[in-house]
Each structure stands twice: as structure tokens, then as C-alpha cells.
């Protein structure tokens, strides 16, 4: 009978849990490789601007005079090329997706350590303080 094609699927679906996930009330599925969003360890950044140059969506702005590293999470396409090219490995890919936000809330600015000086006393790095 052609009308009973999907009976097995129907019965299975009747007695199993819903296939959908109540995101964002329940966290999204993630794997070790999931590209969620870019994170920075400001202490390691040497403001070499490699990430800014490589970024295909121009989401990253690095200022080596002010020693700031800025990312616009709304522009970021999470391609992970900055993570791959970073010479000091200060950029990492977090597996968690960012929650919903407005265009204005996407900008994150960090004060970073900057290039290493020869005399360690002269480095006025003020650590991992994001100023928003």
C-alpha cells in the first residue's frame, strides 16, 4: 500500500524525544572544532597587524601606537584565518556561539601588551582590561 510508506518513521517519531533543541534556552550542540567566536589573550598580542591584514571582512583593527586590539563581532565571519596566522597564538577560537546582539554591541576593544621591549622595565602593559 502506497499510503503507508512512512509508517515506521511516524511510529518512531511518536515514541521518541523531539529532534529539535530549545536554543537558546538550552545551549547549542558544539564540537571541539566548532567555530563560535574569536577570543584574544591581550598579554600575548604584539600588535603585528597580521590578523588585520588577513581578515577578509575587515573586522579587526589594531593600533600599535595606542596598543589596542579591536574586533567587530558583527562584521566577523568566523573564518578563523586570524587564529591560523597569529604568530604568538594569542587569538583562539571559542566553541560557544555569541548570543544575539545589536550592531552597536558587537565592538570589543582590548588594551594589549604590545611588542616586547628589550628592557623589561620599560613595558607599560596594563593587562587584560577590556574597555567597552
Amino acid at each position, binding site marked *: 500500500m*502506497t*499510503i503507508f*510508506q*512512512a509508517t*515506521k*518513521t*511516524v511510529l518512531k*517519531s511518536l515514541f521518541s524525544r523531539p*529532534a529539535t533543541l530549545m536554543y537558546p534556552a538550552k545551549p547549542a*550542540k558544539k*564540537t*571541539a*572544532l*566548532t*567555530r563560535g567566536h574569536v577570543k584574544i589573550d591581550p598579554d600575548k598580542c604584539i600588535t603585528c597587524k597580521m590578523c588585520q591584514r*588577513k581578515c*577578509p571582512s575587515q573586522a579587526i583593527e589594531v593600533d600599535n601606537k595606542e596598543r589596542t586590539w579591536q574586533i567587530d563581532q558583527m562584521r566577523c*565571519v*568566523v*573564518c*578563523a*584565518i586570524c587564529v*591560523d596566522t597569529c604568530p604568538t597564538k594569542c587569538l583562539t*577560537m571559542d566553541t560557544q556561539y555569541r548570543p544575539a546582539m545589536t550592531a552597536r554591541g558587537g565592538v570589543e576593544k582590548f588594551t594589549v601588551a604590545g611588542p616586547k621591549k628589550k628592557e623589561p622595565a620599560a613595558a607599560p602593559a596594563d593587562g587584560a582590561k577590556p574597555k567597552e
Partner: protein
Amino acid sequence: MSKQITIPFGPQHPVLPDPIHLDLVLEDETVVDAIPTIGYVHRGLEKLVEKREYTEYVFIAERICGICSFIHSQAYVQGVEQIMGLEIPERAQYLRTIWGEYSRLHSHLLWLGLFADSMGFESVFMNSWRLREHILDDLEATTGGRVIQGVCKVGGVKKDIAPEKLDEMLKGLKTLEHELAELTDVFLFDSSMKHRLKGVGKLAKEDAYYLGAVGPTARGSGIDIDMRSTGYAAFGKINFKPVVEHDGDCYARCAVRAKEMFTSIDIIEQCIKKIPDGPVDMKVTGAPDGEYFSRAEQPRGEVIHYIKGNGKKNLVRHRVRTPTFTNIPPLVTLLKGVELADVPVVVLTIDPCIGCAER
């Protein structure tokens, strides 16, 4: 002769995931002509090739489409590698083939769902997308992205799949195959589906050929054209036969896609069994100098990436001919003579991806 009226169809229409506008000229309830208009989502991606280095343009090439994204990046990097004369490692070729077939599976499952939805068959829509979720999970676990994989790069691929994961994927596909068989049986043998699809929107073999139909649209009309037969990536070492149907109606095009999924599963299984060990990428220096037409088979048909470089970091020209763009003239022919109520079904059988068509 009865009076002709024109009815606008789209750009916002419940069955259309992407905006395309069709002016349907009707006589009573029958379509006598259709005038397509595109240009609602043009983004000018091809121009960006002058602003980004050729290695980073892969990400932009991948974002031409949100469904067949992997094969876009694959076709682009293949073109660049051909110009630069790179012989990429064999394992990378196999991995590209596996991911390409996975993305074909997820695209076809998405299409089957949307197609069922266009006929008001909501439960089949949900079931298709439930199965698609398993494919997306595997893609995410191996590449890091569900839809935009971002693993292709000039000179190979970025990620490797561990042998244990490959075995797990093989097992997952075996289970999926049974569930898929049950799902596709609904499309192929259900009486209401057959009633809705058989004999609707016929495209003769000659018309399909002269209007330049590609992919399942051409194969549904009996033209044996499949770019995978040219043996790019690892397809040269894989045994497979393109699915060809001869009726040329909506049912034939649906059957091609439904049966192609099993071909894809078979190709992935062969790849996993044959995949050699070794590196997955190689060092690339210099920049492409020359031009190349790179062709690949997308879920929707043949895609052509034309790439021209002049030895500098930025390419000079990039032009993409996407399958949907080529399938619009056949669509206009298909629509002539169908009932107004069948228009959504007929439009969906070419699997329109307007994001691709306009780039």
C-alpha cells in the same frame, strides 16, 4: 481567445527561500509566458577579488552560496592550483571529495524538505530536515562549520579527519541510508506525490540541451551530464554512475535528486575505504599568473569559476557561472503551459538558489 492577465510571483513568496521575481502571463488558469527578473540580492562579490589576496578570497568564494558553499571554495582553489601548477596531496583530494559529497547530501535533503513544503507536505519537510541534521553534525565535527565549512585553502585542506572519526562517519551513513530509503520512498512511490508531479512541467531532451540546462534539471530530461565524471578531486578513482531519468517532468527531477543521495553515500563510503595516509596540505609560494576555467559539480549542476591572475597577490578577474543562472531559461520554458497552482512546485524543481545566481 480569452483575456490575458499578468500575476506577479515573488520576490517574496512563501515557497521561495531566495528572492526571484516572475511575471506570469495567464490565460484562464494556464501560464502562457513567464518573465523572470533577478537582481534583488546582487552583492558584487566578483569585484572583491581585486581587494583581497587570492588566499583570503577563498572565504568570499565560499560565501557565494549558503548551501553549496564547500563546492564553491573547492572549484575556486582548484582553479588557482591549476594556474600555479600545484599537485596537492592525495589525502586532501579525498577529503575534498568526502566533504563535497556531504554538502551534496545536505543540499538535496534541504531541497526535498522545501519541495515537500511547497506541496503542503509539512511532516515530510520536517523529516527531511531531521535527517539533514545528522549530515550537518558530521560536517561540524570534522570542519568546524555547519554550513560554511571554511576548510579549503590553496594547496590542500586545513583540517584532517582522524581514522576513528572516518569509521564513525561510515557507521552513521549506514544508519542514515535506511532512514533515507524510507524518506525517498515517500517521494518516489506515494500516490499523492505521483499525482502532483507526474507529467507536470515537462522539459524535452532537446530543449534542455539547447537552453543549457545543467545538473538534475538536465539529468531529469535524459542528458547524461555530470562534471564529477571528468574526475576532478578524487572522483577519477571512484566508481559511480550519474543518475539519469528520461521523463523530463517534475517527478523525474525529484527522482534524480532522491537517487543521487544514495550515489553520494556510496561515493563517501568508497572514499573512506580508499583514502591514503599522508599530509593534507602543502606550502604555497608565489601568486597565480595565468587564467583557468575551473569546473565542478554542485548539487544544482555545473559551476564554472573563471580565474585570471597576473602574478600579483590580487587576482585580476574572477567570474562565476552558477547552475541556477543557467537553469533560469529552462525554467521559463518549463512554466509555459502549467496551471497556476503548479507554479511553486515547478519553480522549486530547478532548485533555485538566487544567492548563487546573482553573487
